[in-house]
């Protein structure tokens, strides 16, 4: 019984020592604060400043006010890069969510095998540069395995990464190959949170597998579905590595996504000011999208409760 007597006393004593924590907190936070100030805050301010300048990285930056923003508003390549990015995001998230949900459902109903889950996630661990190289080879117009497969099925050879129509879907296929297993594991974790009693009740009511999935599993997973959507949306806007390795934005701008466009402006054309304005605009776009999604996320969470 001594514990019940001392506990409130302890709590009071701890609570009356807030001043002592200040110095200790500073000691605990010092390295992270240093890193944050030097490599997040300071560059963010500099980036905002660069966006108001004309600068080729060599001479002094020249202040030009909002010129860069006026220019990007009229830059067809910028708008095209947003359109391309949008198309990619829709394809990539579409494939990964549908295939990921299907896979998660299969895992959920069939096996708890760690081996199967590990094998599914291997592509996610492969460096994106390697993935890009590997798929350039698999999709090669003449000798690639995928074309061997098409020919064996009696279809025509395709230049997947060189055709303006197929290049972007091909890039989306490549990134989906690496990301779907990962997405499936996230969604599988969400399915495990649905209480088994719910399934037992559904089975007793004579609900079939498919019906149970759409009527029970999916609605109960809405919070995690929303979470995965937010994360993959922000992630897919940052598509760079795959494009840089496989297509370099070609053919005919078909894969020139916004991240790659910014990179080119900064490091190929040495327009640091313009690139910074583009990056800041992307930040604003993502901010708005995240805000909207967060609102949806909150709405669906409260639906559940």
């Amino acid at each position, binding site marked *: 019984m001594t514990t019940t007597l001392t506990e409130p006393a302890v709590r009071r004593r701890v609570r009356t020592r807030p001043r002592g924590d200040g110095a200790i*907190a500073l000691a605990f936070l010092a390295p992270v604060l240093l890193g944050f100030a030097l*490599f997040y805050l300071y560059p963010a301010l*500099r980036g905002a400043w660069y966006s108001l300048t004309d600068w080729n990285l060599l001479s002094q930056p020249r202040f030009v006010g909002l010129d860069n923003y006026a220019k990007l508003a009229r830059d067809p390549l910028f708008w095209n890069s947003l359109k391309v990015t949008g198309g990619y995001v829709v394809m990539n998230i579409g494939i990964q969510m549908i295939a990921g949900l299907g896979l998660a459902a299969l895992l959920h109903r069939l096996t708890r095998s760690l081996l199967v889950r590990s094998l599914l*996630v291997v*592509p996610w661990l492969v460096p994106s540069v390697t993935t890009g190289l*590997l798929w350039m080879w698999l999709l090669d117009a003449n*000798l690639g*395995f995928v074309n061997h497969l098409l020919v064996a099925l009696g279809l025509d050879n395709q230049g997947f990464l060189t055709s303006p129509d197929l290049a972007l879907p091909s890039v989306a296929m490549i990134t989906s190959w690496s990301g779907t297993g990962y997405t499936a594991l996230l969604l599988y974790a969400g399915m495990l949170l649905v209480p088994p009693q719910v399934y037992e009740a559904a089975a007793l009511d004579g609900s079939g597998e498919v019906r149970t999935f759409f009527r029970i599993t999916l609605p109960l997973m809405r919070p995690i579905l929303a979470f995965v959507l937010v994360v993959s949306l922000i992630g897919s806007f940052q598509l760079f590595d795959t494009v840089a390795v496989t297509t370099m934005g070609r053919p005919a701008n078909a894969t020139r996504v916004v991240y790659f466009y*910014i990179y080119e402006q*900064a490091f190929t054309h040495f327009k640091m000011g313009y690139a910074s304005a583009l990056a800041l605009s992307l930040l604003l776009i993502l901010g708005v999208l995240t805000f909207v999604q967060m609102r949806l996320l909150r709405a669906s969470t409260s639906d559940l409760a």
Partner: protein
Amino acid sequence: MRRLAWAGLILAVLISLFPLYWMLRTAITPGRELVGDSAGLLPAHPTLVNFERVLGLATREESRAAGGSGADLDFFRYLGNSIIYTGLVTSVQTLCCAMAGYAFARLRFPGRDLLFGLFVAALMVPPIFTLLPNFVLVKELGWLNTFQGLVAPSLLMSPFAVFFLRQFFLGVPREVEQAALIDGAGRGIIFWRVVLPMTKGPLLTLALTTAVWTWNDYLWPLLVAPGEETRVLTAALGIFLKQSPNTAPDWTGLMAGSALSVLPVLLLVVFFGRRLVDSIQFSGMKG
């Protein structure tokens, strides 16, 4: 129905793994035979010559004869550089972020919520926005092609790591710490002796994720450390690709290099398979 479901799952595993098998299959095909022999499941005359030339073990003449462009990878040096880069960032970042996560979860100090809000906001910032000025900063410091330039932006922190660990420290029962406080232990000792051992699992999980991200990182190392002395594996592969002729890429060499770059990944799965899978599923639970 059940049999069909199993077929679907097995097909998914095959799609996950077959491209990697094909990479290996190509890597052991003699370069000159690729045109006539690129469809079968196994090459007619398997060879290790592509690995030899990628590793720099074959002479330039042997390389050319095997269909190479004359470019090779100084594989072990780049591997070493990748290990240094990944090891430094993973260990220091995890420790620093654990300290900060603890401070945010347990200590009271003025401005705590505001500061934490800033970190959460930083989570949303697309990396390219800070990457441009950080490149300029590293250049101004004269740190291009040095390890300090390579690790600088990520060595001390990532907003994600601080956020992730704070969530865990919030879950550590206060009673345990209070008992230690009564015994006269300082915050430092409590953190080191009580809290860190209790959260070993999440710490390892985070370290593993950070290691995978850092190992696979491409753009930043390519920009600030493309030189021989500091070039990491991913950047080396990218450069190796650019050296390969556009019209007739050196596929057998490229696939041998790619296969070598996947080895560390496979080791990771073999040694940490359960923890890797758990770590992914765990981040899903947070939703």
